[in-house]
Structure formats: C-alpha cells, structure tokens
C-alpha cells in the first residue's frame, strides 16, 4: 500500500517539474533565436530573488495571486471554469474602497466590514453566472467573460465624480479610505512591509484544504467534479452545487485585491493592479488545484513579475518573463494530462499484475456451442 502512496507523490511532482523544465528550455530557445545569451537572464533573475526588498515584493504580489488562484481552483475542482475572477476581484475591491471611504467604524469592525463587502460583491457577481447556468444552462465560461466586461463598465460608472469618484489630478480614485480600515503591515525594516493580509491568504489556503478534504461538503464538491452523474446518484443536487461553488469562488475572488487595497493603496484608482484574475487561472493550473502547489506557483509567478524589470538594465527585454509564464501554462496543460493518463494506466497494469501473481479468479468461461432450431 505504501508503494502506491509514494507513487502518487511522484506523479504529483512529475507534472510540474516536467512543465517547468520544458518552459525553461523553450524560453532559452526564444532567447537564442533572438540572438541573446540564453542563460544570463535567468541568472540575473535568480540573483534578484536573493534581495530582501524583492522578496517582500514577491510575497506581497504572491498573496494576491494566491487568493485569485484559490478562487479559480475551487471552480476547477468541480469542473466549473470561473474565468470571471478578474472582474469579480476588481469590482469587489472597488466596493470595499467605497465603503471604506464612507463608513468609519472602529478598526475591529471596519476591517471585517470591508472583507465582508468584498466577499459579498464577488459572490454576487459570480452568482449571476451561477444562476444563469443553474436556471438556463448558460455556460459559466461565456457568462463570466461577459461579466468581466460589464464589471469594467460598472467600475467606470462608479468612478464618475457625481457617483463615488474623486478626481486626483488625471487619476480616477474612490477617495482615501478611513484609517480604521487600513491593515497594518509586517515591518521588515529597510526591505519594506509585508501586507498584513498575507496572513489572510495563508488562512484561506488552510481553509480551502480543510473544506475540500475534510468536510462532507468538500467531498460532494469533489465528487461533482469527478463525475456529475455519480455525484447526482450519490445524493448531490447538481444545480445547487453549481451555484454554491460559483458563490464560493466569487467570494474568494472578491478578497484577491484586498491585500494591496487595505495594505497599501487605500483607494481604488486607475493604478490598481489588473489582470490578477487571469493570472490566477494559470497559477491554479500549475498548482494542480492543491493549496500547497498553488502557493509555490503563486510565488514563482510573483518572482517572474518582480525580478524581470532588472533585465531591462542589462540589455534584455523583461517581456521574457511573460513569454515564460505563457510557456509554463502551455507545458503544464500538456504534461499534466500526459502524466495523469500514464499514471492511471500504469496503476491499472500494476494492480492487474499483482492480482495475477496472487491468484486468478476461477473464471469458467462457457464455450460450449449449441445450435438452435435443430
């Protein structure tokens, strides 16, 4: 039995390792093709990871990637593709910023209020897609993409000066939030501050694992993802599960922008980071939907982001990091599927072999021939 456990670990690690190796090689080929040194950029980026100020940036960035990727991953676990994390977190960050600018409670109430606002906004936005899928069978992929677009428009509207917007120079903002809603960071001295809500990301990761692997609800959700028909026969209400999963995914997504909002910017402006939701898809894929895997993937992504600007000072284009991210996602999809099928077949063969070695069933095949209508 232990053998199979070891094998599972091997299989779990083989996918990402192969994918990363392939992506590195392909990126090197791109560099060679453009007549550059294929090794130096990576050496430079690795060097960057050693600096403590870059490390703080990486951790901060990774916390947001991590939450966004968890939101995507919980959808993946039941075969739902919430591509709308991007719209959900942006809209949620904005409503939290607006509430933070207008309500002023003591910090012990203010911060939970802001978190709740973000969760509810995200859940509401993904819930629209969930309800559409549940009642009308609309594909959640299409619905959430559309909702991303609508979210952009809604954000533009809320930014209008006579709605909730505050113009600062050329920048649209939602006004500065009250200080009671600021989450203090963890001071790292000269290296800077780690967002306080990095801890929230860790808590969410633990919660994600607990809920999925140790609760009845998590089992139902995973069963729905593995086989909708088997889950239905086991007593899961498939429609309700779709809606629930969409709501949880959106609620998580709503939190993705908060580490930076409550930890640094304290307003939702044109400078607020965009695209985290889409990056989260790649990160969830690379992390195989596992909370630990996603943590590594989020750190890797943040590293590529934060270490690449240095390349510009050495005559390389920092876009090599973006190319690399793209190649990783491609390689991940291919290698995971290949490893999964290989593993499944390998196990089938091994189980067959073990049983054959033990004992063979007394199959008395009936080969007797008869002729009807004699």
């Amino acid at each position: 039995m232990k053998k199979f456990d070891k094998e599972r670990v091997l299989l779990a690690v083989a996918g990402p390792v192969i994918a990363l190796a392939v992506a590195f090689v392909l990126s090197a080929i791109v560099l060679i093709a453009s007549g550059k040194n294929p090794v130096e950029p990576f050496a430079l980026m690795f060097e960057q990871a050693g600096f403590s100020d870059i490390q703080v940036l990486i951790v901060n960035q990774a916390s947001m990637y991590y939450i966004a990727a968890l939101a995507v991953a919980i959808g993946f676990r039941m075969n739902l593709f919430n591509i709308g994390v991007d719209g959900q977190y942006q809209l949620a960050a904005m409503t939290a910023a607006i509430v933070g600018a207008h309500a002023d409670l003591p910090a012990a109430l203010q911060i939970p209020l802001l978190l709740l606002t973000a969760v509810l906004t995200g859940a509401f936005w993904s819930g629209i897609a969930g309800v559409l899928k549940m009642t009308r069978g609309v594909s959640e992929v299409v619905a959430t993409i559309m909702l991303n677009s609508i979210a952009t428009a809604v954000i533009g509207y809320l930014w209008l000066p006579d709605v909730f917007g505050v113009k600062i120079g050329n920048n649209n903002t939602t006004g500065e939030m009250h200080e009671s809603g600021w989450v203090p960071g963890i001071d790292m001295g000269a290296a800077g501050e780690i967002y306080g809500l990095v801890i929230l990301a860790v808590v969410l990761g633990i919660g994600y694992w607990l809920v999925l692997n140790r609760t009845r609800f998590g089992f139902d959700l995973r069963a729905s993802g593995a086989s909708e028909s088997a889950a239905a026969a086991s007593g899961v209400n498939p429609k309700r599960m779709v809606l629930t999963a969409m709501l949880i995914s959106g609620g998580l997504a709503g939190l993705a922008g908060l580490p930076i909002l409550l930890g640094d910017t304290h307003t939702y402006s044109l400078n607020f980071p965009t695209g985290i939701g889409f990056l989260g898809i790649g990160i969830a894929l690379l992390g195989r939907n596992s909370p630990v895997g996603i943590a590594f993937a989020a750190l890797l992504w943040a590293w590529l982001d934060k270490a690449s600007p240095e390349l510009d000072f050495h005559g390389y284009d920092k876009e090599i990091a973006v190319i690399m991210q793209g190649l990783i996602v491609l390689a991940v999809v291919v290698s995971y599927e290949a490893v999964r099928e290989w593993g499944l077949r390998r196990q089938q063969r091994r189980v067959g072999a073990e049983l054959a070695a033990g004992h063979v069933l007394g199959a008395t095949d009936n080969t007797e021939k008869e002729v009807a209508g004699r």
Partner: protein
Amino acid sequence: MTAVELAGITKRFPGVVANHDIHLTVRKGTVHALVGENGAGKSTLMKILYGMQKPDEGTIATDGEQVTFSSPADAIARGIGMVHQHFMLADNLTVLENVVLGSEKLYGIGARARRRIKEISERYGLGVRPDVLVEELGVAARQRVEILKVLYRGARTLILDEPTAVLVPQEVDALFDNLRELKSEGLSVIFISHKLGEVLSVADEITVIRRGTTVGTAVPAETTPRQLAELMVGSELPTPETAESTVTDRAVLTVDTLRLAAPGGKALLDDISFTIHAGEVLGIAGVEGNGQTELVDALIGLRHADSGTIRFLDQDITALPTRKRREQGVGYIPEDRHRHGLLLEAPLWENRILGHVTEKPNSKGVWLDPKGSQEDTRRIVETYDVRTPGIDVTAASLSGGNQQKLIVGREMSHKPRFLIAAHPTRGVDVGAQAAIWDHIREARREGLAVLLISADLDELIGLSDTLRVIYDGRLVADADPAAVTPEELGSAMTGAASGHLEHEEPPGDDGSGAGGAEDDDGSGAGGAEDGDGSGAGEAGGDGGPGAEKIPGDAGRGVDKTPGDAGSGAEGEAR
C-alpha cells in the same frame, strides 16, 4: 461466397475478456443478424470488424482474403461500412454536405456528388433528397442518410448497430424493405439487435453471442423466438434459486400509479403500481429501454414523478431528494456502475464514501472521517472478497466484477431496508455472481425488500419472489417465478403476452389480467391469481391500441438509454 469471416476473435481488456473465440461468417447477399444481450460483446466485436479496435487473437477475412484493420479507414477501404446507433450527422448541413464530408475526393462536392447520391438513393430505394437540411429530417430519414453515406463510400458490407432501436414499427418495416433491396443487389448486412421478432423476420442467418463468445447459429425458418431466447440467455449458469420464501406482510415500498413523462409529454412510465414487502425480491423483466432506467431514477430520486406516489415504510418519499432517500435506507446498485456508482479516479476508500457521505463511518457531523471509512473499506474488501492490492488504488484499476463487489459491499454495509439492484451481476464473472446473489439472499432473509432489474432471465426467475414484466413504461404482466419459464417471460417482454403468465394457458386468458398494474397487494402470484376478471379485458385492450400508439414511445425510449454503449464489455475496458 463469404463477404466477411471472423475466426477465433479474442479481445481482452484489463481484467475482462470482452470477446472470446468468436466465429462469424457472413455470406454475400445476405442479412446476417448478430444477437445477444447487452454486454454480451456485440459492440466490441463490431468495433473490431470496423477497425476501431484490434483483436488480441484471431483473424478477419473479407472476400476470402485475410486482412488486418488498424483504423476504420482500412475497413472502409475493404468495403465495410458502419451505421452507428447514434447518428453522426451535422444538423445544420444539408444531406449532400453530410454525405460528402470527409470523402470529398470520391466525387467532389458538387454536381457529380449530387448525381451519385441520387443514383444510390434510387438504386436502393432510399428516397434521400440531397439538398434538404438534416435538421428537417425525421429519425428514419436520418438513418437512411447514414446508410447512404456508407454506401457512397463504397461499402459492400454494412454493419447496422441496433438500427431499429429508434424507429417506430412502420419505419422498421420500411428499413427492412431497404435492407432487402441492398441484399438483392449483392450487398451484405450485419444486423445487430436483441429484438428477436425483428431478427427472425429480416435475417437470413443468425449468430448468437453470449458472455463474449458465439454460442450458436440459427436459421430463422427453423427457429422460434423461444429457442433463440434460450440460446441468448443460456441456462447453464449457477441457478440463483431462493430456497424458502421469506416474504412478510410488512410493506416496505409502495408505488402507486406512478407516471413519468418525457419533456415532450410522452409517458416514459405510466400507471406503475406495486408493493414490495420486507423479505421480498420483486423482479422486473423487460427488454432494455422499456422504462427500467426511468423507474430506477424515479425510485432513487434522480427524476421526480409527474404524478403518483412512492411510499417507503410509513413515509411519503415522492418529493424527497436522493440524499434523504439514501439516508433513510434505500440502497442503490446502479445499472451503469461507471456513470452512477463510482468515482473512477478516486481511491477505493473515497468510493466507499460515495452515496453515504452523511452516514457513519464516513463522517462525524459536517466533518469527514477518513480513518473510519478507510477501516471500513478494508472490512468490505475482506468480507466481499474484492480483489485489490490495497484501498488506495483507484477504482478504475479494478476489474468490473471487483468494482461491482465493492459497490454491493458499500450498499449492504448501511443496512438498507430497500435495495434497488439494477443488473447487479452484469459483466461480472461467475464466481462473483454467485457471491453477489448470496449477499442479496442473506439480506433478504433479514427483511430487506429488493427491486431487482435484470436482463438475465435466470437470475430474475431464480432470485425473485414476485415477477413483473415491464413493456413500454407499463407493468403489463406478472408471473410466479416458481412456475414461469424464460420463454414465457420472453414473450411478455416483447409485448406479445400480458396479464398473469401461467403454464399451459394462453397468455392473457386467465382472470388476473392487468393485475400487474392494478393489484398492488403484491403478495406474489397467489394474490394475482385471485384477481378480478375484469382485468382480462383491460389487458386485451392494451394489446390493441397500445401496439399502435405506444411503440413510438418504446422506440424513442431506447434512444435515451443507450444500453450497449455505456455498459457491458465496452464499459469494462475503461
């Protein structure tokens, strides 16, 4: 002259032998029927002949020449064409476009192709118009397009996989006329079916396949449906007889005038009434696709009845969701274990949780209890003799029989009061079959009520205390398993007989009539025998108008339960 000859074909999948030493000879200019129960291995055999799968042993010869096919393209090149049970046509393209799609090189895509299509259509009387959109065509017309498509590619031997499953009787007759036309032009047809009446009327020769091997051949002129049924079902299996009756008078499940309609309004189940008592096994016999799947779905709560009630013990469970029903003691051995009974890529112990996640030992409150379920999985593996190296392997790596033993063990472990057993021993080897029967019998002694659905008539007769026959969504006949023979059941399953089936009496003549539908004291044959005389009239009436109006439903009903595709040998392979 032989068109196709298969000799000694054997095909193994991990853990199962789907085909074993199969011999099949199809002569030119004949319709050759291949009959057998679902899961007997017909589909696998045809996939081998059509190049979709390679045999492990044996040879294929066409026109007396030995060949090997590595893809359908090879088979097509040798003049073998397949008309699938589920049509492969693009709705929004015209007939012409559908036909030329993929073989544009043959006659182009324009006037030449159109001429060729018209020519084939006229020659074989197919009546296909090339410029109509496929979406405007009915089922029968689509099937003719499929046949034409195959002929267009130059097929001389056509494989028709359950072609009548989707047709109403008039359409079936028209199809048979087409087949005779093909035959007279020197083409050969391999006709796959399990409808014996049809086979006898259209085939020139019949090969019967059972449990993956050819068990005999027959000539229609010298064969009766009964003999064919006997050959198909076989009778040398370990007999699943139940020694003493354990039926009590405590009703466990009472179904009253249950009706379930398809979205279009057609009744899939109509006027279903029966009672199962503690310690009683109620067997439902019927040709697949006559409402069995829907009945099971309605009982487990995957579909909700349009009218009628289901009472379990003293509670009306008609509106209860699946999970509540399972928690209250409804066990479920599904017809298609891969679709409804297992998470194939999950370890065995997680599969042990499936369906019972809210119950001990799988969970405590809202939390799962992996330790508890793992321990209990080990117990099930031992008690039910599931052959596996451990409980952490995926369900997919077990053979079909061992998967089934795990499911049976799981369901029995929760002490169900009522068990739905749909084809509990399908695709299971003889040893496991006997073990599963033993488990059912043992639980029955302890007061379990069982609804048994099976295609294996021996299993039905041997295990059941009471038998009902389902035909076209209605319970049309009942029988005493101690007195009835497989042949008598077989004739009721095709709708030829109804009412109470008894020896040496013409069917439908004895007084009980539609007792199956009406009389729900269900205390076995005794009660039904004393049934009121008026039933006979109703039963007779059923035969008349029913035959005209209902078969349409019956045909389309089959469409929704692609029996062969999902289950059986092919399913085992995964």
